[in-house]
């Protein structure tokens, strides 16, 4: 019983939970900043720069605005981070799953909203007009991302459900297991538009460059973060980085889950047995997941950041509800007809 509790505590605090999110999230965001800089002919900051930023912010004074609600102002960032850590617990790492059996795609959809909500609540609690503008923009951004995201997830669920004969399969574990047995979904013709649509959703969902109207630092002083300083700001910056990890690892699990099968075969071929094989599998899983996340960050976030300029809020809305949604819908229809 105690062993069980310690195991789950380790899940929450160390491996798919907090520490893993902290390290990989900040590392991904450092790689993102470096890549953007290189694409813009710059040397760029060191890859560990987000770590420096985070620790520096921890050492700064926290100013609480007179108009703000103190409790909400301080708790909102923690709620957002907690939401993301929980989300990371529910996303399987190929064959390794911490809590995946109890949660499915719909829970992930809900959890993805929590960071955005926390930033909106925290920003709203400051009473700053910049936060007000940022809040309304963030809401529109979330709303525009949500439709294509739901359509993409539906398409994947339908595809896997049709193949396994359950109609619609909402379990992420099942989706990954299916891919490990039958190859990645990215290899299926009907899923390619959905994968492209998901790639386009990643920058919108993480609030990175062309879709960062809600946090435009040059026009509305980073919107909802305008009044934040010190450690709470650091937690928000950390949440932003962890969200990159969440979205990219979700992509890997939805469309590239088949690689997990390859890893298992590799470990089997090495002829290891028992605990050693399990540990090696998890280690390889994590390394492969991290590398894939880096590639996805480079393609979906850094590259898009380097070649585009910030969109207006109505352009974001129009883009997601037309181009990206259409792509996801094509995939859903194809999956419905069993392609």
């Amino acid at each position, binding site marked *: 019983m105690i062993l069980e509790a310690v195991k789950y505590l380790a899940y929450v605090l160390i491996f798919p939970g907090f520490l893993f999110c902290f390290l990989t999230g900040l590392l991904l965001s450092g790689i993102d900043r470096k*890549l953007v*800089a*290189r*694409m*813009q*002919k*710059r*040397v*760029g900051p060191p890859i560990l720069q987000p770590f420096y930023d985070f620790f520096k912010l921890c050492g700064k004074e926290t100013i609480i605005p007179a108009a703000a609600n103190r409790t909400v102002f301080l708790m909102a960032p923690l709620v957002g981070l907690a939401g993301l850590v929980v989300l990371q617990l529910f996303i399987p790492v190929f064959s390794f799953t911490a809590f995946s059996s109890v949660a499915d795609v719909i829970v992930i959809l809900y959890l993805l909203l929590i960071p955005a909500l926390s930033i909106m609540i925290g920003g709203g609690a400051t009473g700053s007009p910049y936060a007000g503008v940022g809040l309304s923009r963030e809401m529109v951004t979330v709303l525009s991302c949500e439709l294509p995201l739901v359509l993409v997830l539906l398409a994947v669920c339908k595809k896997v459900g049709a193949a396994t004969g359950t109609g619609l399969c909402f379990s992420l574990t099942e989706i990954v297991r299916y891919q490990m047995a039958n190859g990645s979904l990215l290899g299926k013709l009907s899923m390619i538009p959905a994968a492209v649509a998901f790639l386009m959703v990643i920058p919108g969902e993480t609030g990175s460059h062309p879709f960062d109207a809600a946090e435009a630092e040059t026009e509305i002083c980073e919107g909802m973060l305008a009044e934040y300083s010190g450690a709470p700001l650091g937690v928000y910056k950390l949440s932003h980085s962890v969200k990159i990890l969440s979205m990219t690892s979700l992509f890997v699990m939805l469309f590239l889950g088949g690689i997990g099968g390859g890893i298992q075969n590799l470990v089997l071929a090495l002829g290891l047995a028992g605990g050693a094989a399990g540990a090696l599998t998890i280690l390889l899983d994590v390394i492969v997941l991290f590398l894939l996340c880096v590639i996805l960050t480079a393609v979906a976030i850094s*590259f898009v950041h*380097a*070649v*585009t300029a910030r969109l207006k809020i109505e352009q974001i809305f129009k883009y997601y509800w037309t181009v990206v949604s259409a792509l996801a819908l094509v995939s859903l229809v194809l999956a419905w007809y069993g392609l």
Partner: protein
Amino acid sequence: MDFPFVKEAISQLFSKPSCAMYPAVESIAAPRYRGRIAFDPTKCINCLMCERVCCGGAITHTVEKTEEGDKITRSFNLGCCTFCAHCMDFCNHGAIQLTQDYHMIATKEEDLIVSGTFIKKPPVKKAVPPKPAAPAAPAAPVGADAPGGPKETAAPAEAPKPRDDGKPVQDPAKCVYCTICARKCPAGALTVDRAAKTWTLDEDVCVGCGTCAAACPKNAIIM
């Protein structure tokens, strides 16, 4: 939608960045960069021209009376300077130079002040005999010219010689009494009357800066 920088971004990812790695690699300013002021107090004659032309009011001086003479400290406040180099251009003795040094970082205001001290000796008093001669010299040609007398003999005969104390001498044959020298004189030592055709020098006020000679359109002033 149009993405004009796609090719650029990808090609840059695999080529060298175009950064000047400044703190690691020292960079030298352009040859005529106007940076930190270098002041050579040994050349300065305290003509005050630099203070007059400074648009930021960055140049000041203090005078301290000593036995040897006036101890003058001229200071340039770089925190007030526009680096227009007017002082350098107007300094006839080359005492002010704007160098290529651009590292003008200070944590205290004193760090930004460039100053130099020199002692200006009072005018030598034994120069009494030339004194009446100087006003007399211009007076003679005026008198000679008036009756339309012998120009050929007057001009070469009266050709002025440079004085040994570095103060200006007028060549009446060339002078047209345009008053530019009087207006340019930073010390206000020259009085030129256009109507009466007189050119007078107040030797006690003159610092011998040479601004009048440089300004004269007819080169009628000899230092």
